[in-house]
């Protein structure tokens, strides 16, 4: 619980100072912690930190017309951070959800993709978990993403290239031939 509180405040601080690099670094750390500790609030915070890094990265969101909405995000995140440890996880999750709702309203003015910022954050988080070694089913469950969506995303990355496997393609093909009764 302490780690969640500390990380949520760190995310808030990095977002307030619009430090995209810090948010990305925090995202890496939170995701590792989430996979090790395996709690839903940490997974949600991983999604949030990714989305907030994306917001800070986009110059259009830093224009004065978005200032009030960014302030609303900060306030919602502050409420969520303060609630950690004081209320049950289910309530913390609701507070994180409120941050996401505020983020969604930010996009309403000028939506550019079918998949919104929150969906993109969930997809990226799920794909990273899968890349780290967690199964597709677990990654999908913890982020609420569809497995195929994660697979499509993974297929466009280099994640499988980084993996060292025991069997080579010749051995695999021999196994496959064995299935049909051939050598």
């Amino acid at each position, binding site marked *: 619980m302490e780690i969640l509180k500390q990380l949520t405040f760190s995310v808030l601080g990095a977002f307030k100072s619009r430090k995209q690099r810090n948010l990305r670094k925090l995202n890496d750390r939170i995701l*590792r912690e989430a*996979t*090790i*500790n*395996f709690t839903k609030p940490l997974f949600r915070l991983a999604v949030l930190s990714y989305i907030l890094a994306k917001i800070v990265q986009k110059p259009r969101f830093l224009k004065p017309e978005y200032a009030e909405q960014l302030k609303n995000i900060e306030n919602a995140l502050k409420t969520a951070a303060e609630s950690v440890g004081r209320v049950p996880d289910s309530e913390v999750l609701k507070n994180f959800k409120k941050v996401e709702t505020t983020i969604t309203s930010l996009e309403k003015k000028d939506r550019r993709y079918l998949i919104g910022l929150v969906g993109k954050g969930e997809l990226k988080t799920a794909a990273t978990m*899968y*890349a*780290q*070694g*967690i*199964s*597709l*089913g*677990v990654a*999908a*469950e913890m982020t609420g993403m*569809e*497995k*195929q*969506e*994660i*697979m*499509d*995303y*993974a*297929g*466009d990355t280099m994640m*499988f*290239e980084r*993996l*060292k*496997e*025991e*069997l*080579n*393609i*010749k051995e*695999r*093909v021999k*196994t*496959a*031939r*064995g*299935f*049909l*009764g051939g050598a």
Partner: protein
Amino acid sequence: MITKDILCDAGSFISLTSTCMEQLIYFFAEKHNVRFVIPPSVEQEAVSRPINRGMKKYLFSALRIKDLINDGVVSISDVKASEEAKQIMQYANNLFFVRGKPIQLVHMGEAEMLSVAKKLGIEYILIDERTTRMLIESPFSIKKHLEKEFHTNVMLNKKNLQALSKELNGMHALRSSELIILAYEKGFFKRFQGFEKEALKAALYKIKYSGCSIRFNEIDEYLRWRK
């Protein structure tokens, strides 16, 4: 001809159908007497859910798989193996430890696939998902991979590894890519008249981009091997 059974994961089926390669399933069923078996959870995930929820992106795949079921090419097994699945999950999710905490590697659905295969005595599993496949093939590779990703030592529970290996003993994992390669070797791509190898290469790339865990160098290596 003896019937050859293969238990299929939802991901592989969706990949094959969304890349318009379901003809390959008919090809194996009709010409090589292969019976594609799915547990009810796969039917639910790949067919019923997208249709019932009107999931636009996956509707077409769902209808294609439904067609395969209606044509009798794919059969749904009604075997119940949730207790065995829980046992597999217990071993798999208490196999690797980071900072004294067990890494939750697999999901109930994935454990259920393995337990259904065991219960039905099916040796071959069609699976594009990487982690479950590696559990069957080489759990040590997962340990090495986790260490690289988490920049820390990963502890292995040998007792659970032995128990899991016993559960999965004799199982073989095939990816969609191997099914495509087999189809090529059995003449499925002949209709491309003179462009069979190009068609194979294109199909392998397509399935890779759909999330099948094959590497580019494996594709290249196979194509060089078959020159």
